[in-house]
């Protein structure tokens, strides 16, 4: 059994090696497909980071009138917390708001001075609300507008980031869709090229195949070497794609890092190397095997 596997692998390898020029072209097209696919993954990651960064900045703040009691504020807080769309509500009391304000402007003598001159705390107590996702802010605002404590509410601030988020999402979706279309077209071409290479191998080995059938070679023994050959194109393409991808990513990563702070492409793909590399290999091998499978179905009679 082991010997049989060895024979199948050896034959597949020899087919691959003897097709040198053809192998070069076939592998090249596959490399392009795999690189394009990797590019799509990068795009996906970058746009995902941008969107989640923006989403974190969205919140709703409710400011209460000066005559609102702490009980009333806390009652609103409780009401909000019972809403399913709400992720978190933070209560900022007048005193806390003042302390924050002082700390923020600690270096500004003029502000410090004016504050000292005031007898009363001029700041309002407020609630800061985070929603579970960015589409739910509108409904939270509506809920607040209809609340029974509405009279003690001074104003509701809804920091509108939604339009920006939608824009980023639609751009990345558009680029992603086109990228996917191009990748699929290229994958189709790669399959056709590999298919043709395997077809030539089969044609060149007409005699051997005929003899194998004649002497009762099992179907598996006749077909498997061509599947191996196809798989090898995929493996080599994956190796080349990865060798090209990481240095290119390293080069691009610093530039993207300048444009979008807090994003590290190389960091992400190095951390996820154990998912990314096997995925590229699996994709390459699948492309190769699918192509040879089609060629075998069409041209190899057993």
């Amino acid at each position, binding site marked *: *059994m082991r*010997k*049989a596997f060895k*024979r199948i692998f050896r034959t597949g390898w020899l087919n691959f090696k003897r097709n040198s020029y053809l192998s070069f072209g076939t592998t090249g097209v596959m490399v392009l497909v795999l690189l394009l696919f990797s590019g799509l993954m990068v795009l996906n990651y970058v746009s995902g980071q941008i969107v989640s960064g923006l989403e974190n900045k969205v919140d709703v703040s409710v400011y209460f009138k000066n005559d609102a009691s702490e009980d009333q504020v806390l009652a609103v807080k409780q009401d909000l917390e019972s809403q399913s769309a709400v992720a978190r509500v933070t209560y900022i009391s007048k005193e806390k708001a003042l302390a924050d304000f002082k700390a923020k402007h600690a270096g500004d003598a003029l502000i410090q001075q004016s504050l000292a001159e005031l007898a009363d705390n001029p700041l309002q107590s407020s609630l800061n609300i985070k929603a579970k996702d960015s589409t739910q802010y509108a409904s939270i605002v509506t809920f607040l507008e209809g609340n029974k404590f509405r009279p003690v509410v001074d104003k509701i601030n809804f920091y509108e980031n939604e339009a920006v988020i939608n824009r980023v999402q639609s751009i990345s979706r558009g680029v992603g869709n086109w990228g996917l279309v191009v990748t699929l077209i290229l994958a189709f071409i790669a399959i056709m090229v590999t298919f043709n290479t395997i077809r030539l191998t089969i044609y060149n080995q007409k*005699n*051997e195949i*005929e*003899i*194998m*059938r*004649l*002497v*009762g*070679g*099992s*179907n598996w*023994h*006749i077909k498997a070497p061509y599947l191996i050959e196809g798989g090898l194109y995929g493996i080599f393409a994956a190796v080349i794609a990865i060798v090209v991808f990481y240095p290119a990513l390293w080069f691009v990563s610093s530039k993207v890092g300048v444009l979008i702070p807090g994003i590290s492409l190389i960091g992400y793909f190095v951390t996820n190397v154990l998912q990314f590399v096997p995925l590229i290999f699996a994709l390459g091998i699948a492309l190769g095997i699918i192509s040879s499978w089609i060629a075998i179905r069409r041209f190899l009679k*057993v």
Partner: protein
Amino acid sequence: MIELKDISTIYDDFLALDNVNLEIKDGEFVSLVGPSGAGKSTLLGLMTRELTPSKGEILIDGINIADLSHAEVPLLRRKIGTIFQDFKLLSRKNAFENVAFALEVSGAEPEEINEDVPKVLNIVGLADKAKNFPHQLSGGEKQRLAIARALIHRPRILLADEPTGNLDMLNGYDVVKLLMKINEFGTTVILATHNREIVNIVGRRVISMEKGRVVRDQIEQGKYII
């Protein structure tokens, strides 16, 4: 036992076999004679399921070979050895490897290969040429090597399609003598040929074909008659 029942084979418009009925018993030596295009090769091709009949059925040991699955066809072909006029040897492999190849592709273990190949090369008289490549062998030797390969699975039936066609009389005679020896060990031999001398030397059952039909079936001491 091979039974052909009402076999007809049509290629496009050409009727290659026309309602052939035959029964070949185990251990027989059958010479299948007739001019080119009589349907001899088609008949052999049907037995290994290289070809499928347009009509009728072929039973080998009572099994209709049209019913065999894809996976079972190789097993049928291991039961039936085949040799051809053009030998069909692999030029890049030496004599030993050509025979071993037949075992390798059917998944045999190396021990089995190393044991069986020299034996069968010995039977066909090529024990000392195991390392020779086909181009280093004479025509007769090439055909004997092809016979060795056909015998490696210990087939019950040996089909020979014009095995002497590329050989001179002497070498052809050697090959036929070898086929007769194999037949003596119990293997059914079906020899398709249009070589009159060879058929007359064998002097066993002779089936004559013409235009896809069996026109004569001499059960014993047959002669080549047109």
